[in-house]
């Protein structure tokens, strides 16, 4: 018994292959709507990945470190250098008994006077007058501590860091709780300010002093991997086939950037600017078939596109705490020099060096590729973490868009790079 029937199979195939079904009108609309979404996602997958990364970084940063972020457990965020203390003790230190001598809330007195309300102050058995309470000097850190009489001994001998807060909770003798708004004060530990201060419960840093802490100067080093998207476009329709071949031979390879920049205060307490030097290297592999006479060989070239840029960036700090800083940055990278190495295929699909050697000058000269690619736009977000008193480390996802192609107009195609990457930063504070 034969299991095959080629005549029957051919007959069925001939019958079926001629058939076409009528497609309903709505089908195109459904396909168009579905494909549009997927095509947008596919074409922007790197940008979308970067955006997701930025959003995750921002969310984690805000949720974990921002003092106003809602915490389900009610636990305040901790900071580097803050001793861990039991919660009841901490709450005692951050509360002030309401007494007759307590400055009235919303009084015309200086905000520093209000913020300097002593812990365990006037209402204590050995209560002090309001004048004895801590009054912060506007320009120095000579905040006056209050008496700590009435508090537990533990409070008097060691001041613990209290999370930066915009509110001071005030509790009356009768247990009535009142909240006083103090937007620009921070309670800090300062155990070495002398015997008088040893008794104190807290030192109040005035707002301007805290602002000045944001106006520091830093040196920042950065390095990290990049992903580069090559956009190649034919200058004429007759070269589209050639461009397709060029694209087919090229494949992206891990790239990187690194550099050094100064981070300076610009306007107010949130605006800063950065300037420095940045080196970037874009790598790609080129696999092509090289035909010479009757011999066909598979060739490989590792191409590098190097550039030195001057970044001029401005940034805005969204979150600034003792532990964390989160900022968004934008600006331009001005290319100072670019130099390339490797091969590309010419229109006859023969390898051509990215540079030709100019024998008269003895230096490599680009034949098609520019020596300077001009300006690029740059945007990023950065999250810094304080690891030592003057050292911060950070991560910085970024996007770089080159405004002009890397090759000259004489070429049969234009090539442009769009780079996304993740920088790892280390920032050193200068001065005090």
């Amino acid at each position, binding site marked *: 018994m034969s299991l095959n029937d080629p005549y029957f199979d051919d*007959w069925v195939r001939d019958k079926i292959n001629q*058939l076409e079904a009528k497609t309903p009108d709505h089908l*195109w609309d459904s*396909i*168009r709507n579905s*494909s549009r979404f997927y*095509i947008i996602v596919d074409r922007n997958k790197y940008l979308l990945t970067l955006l997701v990364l930025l959003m995750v970084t921002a969310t984690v940063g805000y949720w974990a470190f921002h003092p106003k972020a809602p915490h389900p457990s009610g636990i305040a965020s901790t900071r580097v250098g803050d001793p861990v203390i039991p919660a009841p003790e901490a709450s005692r230190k951050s509360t002030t008994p309401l007494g007759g001598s307590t400055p009235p809330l919303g009084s015309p007195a200086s905000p520093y006077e209000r913020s300097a309300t002593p812990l365990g102050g006037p209402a204590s058995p050995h209560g002090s007058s309001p004048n004895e309470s801590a009054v912060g000097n506007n320009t120095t850190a000579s905040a006056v501590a209050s008496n700590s009489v009435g508090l537990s001994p533990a409070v008097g001998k060691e001041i613990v860091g209290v999370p930066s807060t915009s509110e001071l909770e005030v509790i009356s003798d009768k247990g009535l709780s009142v909240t006083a708004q103090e937007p620009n004060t921070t309670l800090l530990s300062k155990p070495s300010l002398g015997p008088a201060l040893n008794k104190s419960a807290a030192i109040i840093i005035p707002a301007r002093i805290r602002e000045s802490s944001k106006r520091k100067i830093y040196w920042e080093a950065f390095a990290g991997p990049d992903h580069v998207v090559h956009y190649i476009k034919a200058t004429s329709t007759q070269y589209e086939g050639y461009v397709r071949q060029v694209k087919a031979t090229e494949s992206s390879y891990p790239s990187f950037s690194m550099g050094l920049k100064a981070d300076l205060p610009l306007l107010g307490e949130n605006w800063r600017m950065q300037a420095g030097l940045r080196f970037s290297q874009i790598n790609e592999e080129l696999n092509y078939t090289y035909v010479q006479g009757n011999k066909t060989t598979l060739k490989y070239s590792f191409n590098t596109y190097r550039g030195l840029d001057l970044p001029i960036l401005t940034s805005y700090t969204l979150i600034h705490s003792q532990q964390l800083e989160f900022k968004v940055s934008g600006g331009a990278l001005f290319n100072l020099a670019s130099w390339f190495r490797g091969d590309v295929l010419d229109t006859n699909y023969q390898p051509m060096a990215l540079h030709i050697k100019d024998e008269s000058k003895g230096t490599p000269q680009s034949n098609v590729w520019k020596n300077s690619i001009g300006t690029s736009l740059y945007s990023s977000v950065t999250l810094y973490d304080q690891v030592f008193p003057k050292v911060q480390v950070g991560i910085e996802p970024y996007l770089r868009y080159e405004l002009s192609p890397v090759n000259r107009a004489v070429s049969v195609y234009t090539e442009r790079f769009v780079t996304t990457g993740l920088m790892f930063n280390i920032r050193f504070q200068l001065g005090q």
Partner: protein
Amino acid sequence: MSEHQIIRGCIEGDVRSQRKLFELYAGKMLMLCLRYATDRMEAEDILQTGFVKVYRHISQFKFEGSFEGWVRRVMVNTALKHCQKKRIRFDELQPELLPAQGVDPYVYSHLGETDVLHLIRRLPEGYRIVFNLHVIEGYSHEEIASMLGIKDSTSRSQLVKARRLLQQSITSMHKTTMAI
């Protein structure tokens, strides 16, 4: 607009080119989907998913070989994925149930294309898929086995059963037509 220009346009995301591509192949591909699906609604679902895949991955077409063949492969793979969700049942070969039966050559000339399609669609799912893949699309049993995750012998047995059942159906349909 040539096929080459249509493909180029689709790679660049041009909607007019996508529409042209749809008009060019939708009819043929819907027929392909109808052979794998149990009803027209399911076939349209497969066609929609298949075209979305074509538009998304058209840049992977290397301009080597037939573009229609490439689109057809995408559609077949989409149809198979769709069918595999339903867990295709491949019955074991029981040759005694289906005796070998040739078709009178006279019958062939009197049977229309739509009749053949109708009979193929009435085959049990396992038979139908293997018959389509081997006879219409031209895949080997080894390829079918790897595509469906079955043994070569299962693919062969399904084909033999499908062919015999189809021949039986053709003969009985012809007899009924003649009686009327």
